[in-house]
């Protein structure tokens, strides 16, 4: 079926970081081109170089490195070897035995000499670079020092999400490390548009009906031009602009594509966006009883009155005070209220302040609210059966 094939194609594209980041391969100013230029020059000039790739998590640093290395391997199959190290695994302090760390350092230096003699270049990829900069930085020092001799040909690529990674280096290591940095910033609006088109447009030559392909692509174009889609995209990018985040959003949308129509619609994207906006505590409030809501509102009032610590008994006093003032019909006995209180504790909407008073009874242990006033407010608003008095009590505290 064509629609199934299309869906499978889109999903496989989204899951392949190489495909996603290949969008920017052709533009001159992209990080891909800069990195490739640097490595190719180092190999052809047979000199040593080092570079740091910095950027928030999910911005595609390792993906770009992989793309560049793949291209280089196809162009120069015999003159490159790649060694990958990860700061979580290989940094000095994480070794159980000191001996193995020195073996590793010794191994790397020997590899450098070997490859230098045989005119091969080694490319070291150091992931989580900032973790290598902990402790005595021996590995980094030995590696960079070995690169200062003419007999080695190596390129060191450090990848880190800490933007001040090079400030963490000791001064002698920093002196040997060149200052080159490539920043991975979140893509601009035009780049996002290019990315979406690259991923979502179906190609014409993979055996699908051309009419279907044309219809699919024109629908995508309509969606991309729709103002509501722009708003959804903005609200996602304003929180996290990394490409990874965008790809996850697209994946959810694409997976919810209806197979009968075979076309993506704005509803798919809206549904995916809703998943981002889940507020679990507000959702829990929808299943809470009215008495429990009363208790929560009372606790909120006590907190607004700046009572630093209060317990069940003080909440009850407040509860009774409300009933006297407003003469409501929801006046329950203490024992019933205690049951409601325990429910709230189980659901973790309220909690004890500390664990010290475990052997005291529930009524006198200090408690606190575990949801924010805003979430409580949203919960009250969303309950159609919520008594108006509660809303009024809430607004009265000028929660704004």
């Amino acid at each position: 079926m064509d629609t199934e094939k299309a869906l499978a194609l889109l999903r496989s594209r989204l899951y392949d970081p190489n495909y996603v980041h290949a969008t920017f391969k052709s533009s001159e100013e992209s990080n891909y081109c800069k990195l490739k230029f640097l490595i190719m020059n180092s190999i052809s000039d047979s000199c040593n170089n080092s570079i740091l790739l910095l950027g928030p998590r999910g911005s595609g640093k390792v993906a770009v490195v992989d793309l560049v290395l793949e291209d280089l391997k196809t162009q120069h199959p015999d003159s490159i070897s790649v060694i990958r190290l990860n700061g979580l695994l290989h940094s000095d302090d994480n070794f159980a035995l000191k001996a193995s760390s020195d073996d590793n350092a010794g191994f790397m230096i020997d590899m450098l000499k070997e490859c230098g003699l045989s005119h091969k270049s080694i490319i070291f990829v150091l992931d989580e670079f900032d973790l290598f900069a902990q402790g005595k930085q021996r590995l980094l020092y030995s590696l960079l020092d070995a690169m200062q001799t003419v007999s080695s040909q190596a390129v060191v690529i450090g990848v880190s999400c800490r933007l001040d990674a090079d400030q963490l280096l000791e001064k002698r290591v920093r002196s040997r490390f060149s200052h080159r940095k490539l920043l991975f910033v979140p893509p601009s609006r035009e780049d996002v548009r290019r990315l979406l088109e690259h991923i979502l447009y179906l190609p014409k030559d993979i055996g699908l009906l051309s009419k279907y392909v044309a219809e699919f692509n024109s629908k995508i174009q309509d969606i991309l031009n729709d103002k509501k889609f722009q708003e959804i995209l903005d609200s996602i990018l304003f929180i996290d602009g990394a490409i990874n985040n965008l790809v996850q959003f697209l994946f959810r949308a694409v997976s919810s594509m209806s197979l009968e129509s075979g076309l993506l619609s704005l509803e798919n994207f809206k549904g995916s966006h809703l998943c981002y906006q889940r507020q679990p505590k507000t959702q829990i409030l929808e299943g809470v009883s009215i008495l429990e809501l009363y208790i929560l509102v009372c606790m909120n009032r006590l907190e607004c009155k700046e009572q630093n610590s209060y317990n069940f008994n003080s909440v009850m006093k407040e509860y009774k005070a409300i009933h006297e003032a407003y003469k409501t019909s929801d006046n329950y006995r203490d024992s019933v209220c205690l049951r409601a209180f325990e429910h709230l504790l189980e659901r973790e909407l309220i909690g004890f302040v500390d664990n010290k008073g475990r052997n005291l009874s529930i009524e006198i242990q200090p408690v606190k609210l575990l949801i924010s006033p805003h979430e409580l407010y949203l919960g009250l608003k969303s309950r159609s059966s919520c008594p108006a008095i509660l809303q009024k009590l809430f607004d009265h505290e000028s929660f704004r």
Partner: protein
Amino acid sequence: MVPKESNPSRKRSSPGGYSESPCKAPSPGKWRSPRRCNGNRDEVRSVGENGNLSNGDLIGSPKSPRKELFRNSNQQLKWNPRDPAQMQTVKHALHVATPPAIVVCREKEQKNILEFCKSCFQQSKAGSLYVCGCPGTGKTLSIGKVKEYFLGWSKEVGVPSPDVLTINCTSLTSTSEIFSQMLVKFELSKGKATNTSPLQHLQDIFSQKKHQSGRMLLMIADEMDYLITRDHAVLHDLFMLTTLPFSRFILIGIANAIDLADRFLQKLEALNCKPVVITFRAYSKDQILKILQQRIMALGYDVFQPAALEYCARKVAATSGDIRKALDICRCAIEVLEAELKGSVTNKETEKVSFHHIETAISRSFKSPVVDIIQSLPQHQQVILCSFVRLSQHCKKNATTLAELNRSYSEICKSTQIRPVGMMDFASLCTALNDQGLLEIAQSRGDKSKKIKLKVDSSDITFALKGIRFFQNCWCDD
């Protein structure tokens, strides 16, 4: 690709180079080309900038008669940046890994060290020397040269040349391993009882006359501060070996800290044998300029405009005086030129590296990317940074908790009429900022009471965000 020739061949190519006093600065006329000349590299000639040469220094090239012809016509080669071979040569010449034949600007220090070694040698007594200086000031390079001169001198004078051990202390698995390495290298382990430690064995040897073999021992310990342990024992013992009555052991230690000797070797001061301290000062602007020019002169053509080189030297001297940085900036400037020429189609053949290229290279290396990064953050993360600045201005303290920050954040969102994110999203945004090194979130048990500190200057944040219309209202209130 430049063919790799090992060091000895370079030395071979200038046989007379080391017989004169090695620490005299060579005049341009006596310039020896450090280039690894190859048969097909006709273009590379060792012409000084003023064009005069002394005889016999075009060595290693099989086509010397032809070169003589060129030399006499005094034609200087043109620098063609589009020629990849020339580009490669220039980059090689400016690479940190390419050692120069003669180390300029360190003549005085080299002379001092050499004199010290010679006097110890002639008096047959031990001595210790401590060399200190910032990274990139030529310590290891100079001492390597001194070692060569010393060996050469000992051959000339006709005494048995000393045993030399060069060790980089970062390669030791444990600090006391240095003694066993000494034993192995100096072949002193004969007669060693199996249960004495290497240090004890060394101490025995040096305190008794009968174990002497008559040879001097020279040891160069690089990055000596790796030997510092909590009780300073290893460093002490190492230097104390030079104070023993029959030791013929010269120790040269290299490190960055100027006061290492004072701080860690007080006992030696009491025994009146504190090591001689030689400081390698950071390079001044003139020195950096001289070193750069020396490297480029060897190429035979003008790659840089003089103003550009001087600007580079000035900038590097003002910040760190680290020659590696200067070389790096020059290489980067060449790459900027290369990238520029790739795009353009002008026919200008001789395009030198100008002031503008050096300026681009310097801004890339010295400019901190903080402002760019803040400007490229997603909007909510910028609001969080902004709210931190506001909070610290109102409350005059640097640290805050997640709950207070959230409150400040919601206020700003309200005033700019965007919807604030929920608490969970807010916590994850703060974690993302923590990962990037802009905030620091201390580990603490309670979720809302974690202490948060700002790691970036608040003036950087203000500067970065002031161009954005969205944030202009925030600053008006302050």
